[in-house]
């Protein structure tokens, strides 16, 4: 099991009073899982995803990642955990504009201390995997939205994470390009990486084996295909 969340809640303290973003969620993510989370805006999907990805901590409940209690980890250890075991794909890609596609993919490898030769090989493999070998030396501004998202996926896979988290990965793309990204994410999952996607996209959600629907911070129901 990669993630074991038991009764996790996330409450934000706001000037007008506390806001419960995630309420008493119990959820397990297993190796190779393909999970889609959907629900109306503001229902807590992204907050839950952030907790699963160890960038946010639950206010109550317990969350174990690969058997480690995330709440007890220092910031540095959580960073290391994210670096080596979790990949993130964002709606807005967040590629660094001053770096080329290959340098963007190389960044997490460099941060993880991977040697130069191995880094170059891995970057080459990843760009080939997402079909962007020919665009390796292009900067984000020279890439289309779909290409940028593919670079972002390659970057997220750089350190061979156990779990890939994607927050509205097709949110900024047209239908055809979104379909290509959906197929790529399916392939990533088929190759063994657990995948959790937060999405409004019915087609993307429909590809998942587990479909969680959230409402008012809680999982309303779970469907399995």
């Amino acid at each position: 099991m990669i993630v074991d969340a038991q009764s996790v809640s996330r409450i934000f303290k706001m000037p007008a009073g506390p806001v419960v973003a995630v309420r008493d969620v119990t959820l397990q993510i297993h190796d190779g899982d393909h999970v889609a989370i959907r629900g109306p805006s503001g229902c807590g999907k992204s907050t839950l995803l952030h907790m699963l990805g160890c960038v946010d901590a639950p206010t109550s409940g317990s969350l174990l990642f690969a058997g480690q209690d995330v709440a007890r980890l220092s910031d540095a250890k959580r960073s290391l955990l994210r670096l080596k075991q979790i990949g993130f794909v964002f709606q807005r890609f967040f590629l660094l504009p001053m770096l080329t596609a290959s340098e963007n993919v190389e960044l997490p490898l460099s941060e993880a201390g991977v040697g130069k030769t191995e880094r170059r090989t891995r970057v080459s493999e990843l760009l080939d995997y997402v079909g962007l070998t020919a665009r390796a030396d292009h900067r984000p501004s020279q890439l289309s939205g779909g290409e940028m998202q593919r670079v972002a996926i390659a970057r997220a896979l750089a350190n061979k994470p156990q779990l890939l988290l994607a927050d509205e990965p097709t949110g900024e793309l047209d239908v055809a390009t979104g379909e290509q990204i959906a197929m790529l994410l399916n392939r990533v999952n088929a190759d063994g990486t657990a995948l959790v996607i937060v999405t409004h996209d019915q087609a993307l959600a429909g590809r998942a084996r587990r479909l969680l629907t959230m409402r008012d911070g809680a999982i309303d129901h779970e469907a399995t295909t």
Partner: protein
Amino acid sequence: MKALRFAARSLVRQPARAALGVLGVAAVGALLLDMLMLSNGLVVSMRDLLDRYGWDIRVAGGDLPLQGPRIRHASTTADTIANLPSVRAALLFRIADARIDRPNVGPLTAQLVGVEVRSAPGRGVVRTSPPWTIVSGRDIGSAAGDVVINQPLASASHIAPGSILTMRVSCVAEREALPPTTLHVTGLAEFPFSGVNEYVVGGTLGTLKTACGGNVVDEVDLLLVTSTGDADGAAAAIRAAGLGVNAMTNDEVVGRFQQAGFSYFRQISSVLTAVTVSFAVLLITVLLTVSVNQRLGEIAALRALGLSRSRVVKDVLSESVLIVGTGGLLSLPLGWLLAAGLDNILKAMPGVPAELHFFVLEREALAVHLALLVLTALLAAAYPMRIVSTLPIAATLRDEVIG
């Protein structure tokens, strides 16, 4: 990718911002360097002038050289001093006012400096330098009427080495109607304590007395003394000799000048240095803070991808170091040029010796300049570093999507 290289790429990404920061630091750094050069420049320069010809003690009638009454019974006093065991030689130094008539143009007002060396008879030939430096031609010999003149006088009177100089000289306070004296110019010389536009003639004390028509009492403005090695001991011996004169080592002269006014330069430059550094810190802080705030989403994403807090903090610090470092390097030639220009303006003030410099670059000033730039980089990066180190990753990513 190392933090410094990463920071360099970030700066190149926003060239206008980077250029603004670098140029700002270069300008501020140049001013900072000038303030540091000014803070101690006069003292260093004055010491250099005093030490230049090997005379390590000044003997005057007042508290400071050339600022009090003349030394009376100068010959006896000089001989007494020269015979002290700790003294190698003494030089009588007398200044007289002079007027040089020029055909078809107005006369020039000049100074005639007369010098004469005294040393104890048993010490053989004592080699000493007159208080000037020959630029062209030759120095004065023993012949009466030989003089050297400075370049401004040579230019103004169209006189070159080998020419005859005719001047009227007065050795008393009141102007006299003396007959003109004819002098033989042997060379051009630099007089370290003369002003930029002052006209100076140097010769022997005998030449000066002759030029004054014999109307001169046994007085000098200053005695320059060379010790046998222990200037403090020699100065103490002169004071103990009860000659009614004030003997000061060059260190003491510099110290008195500092008390008399040089310290104001240091105080002013300290205040301006503090203001300059504050300005640089504010400039870089604003630039980095704006840059960081524009990239919060990116930084949060990098943190989500596993880049450590220390890494993103290091990136910001590296940007600050690069901006301040590049600007600091540019500030050195810029500061040097600015100092040279300001020095020329200040030296044009009346009464300021041409060889005296207000801005002097010392190793210590460079070290302080470097230290202050490092401090600037650190202080300027402190606030933006705090922003990225305390950045809430999830909330920032959420805000970016909503935004």
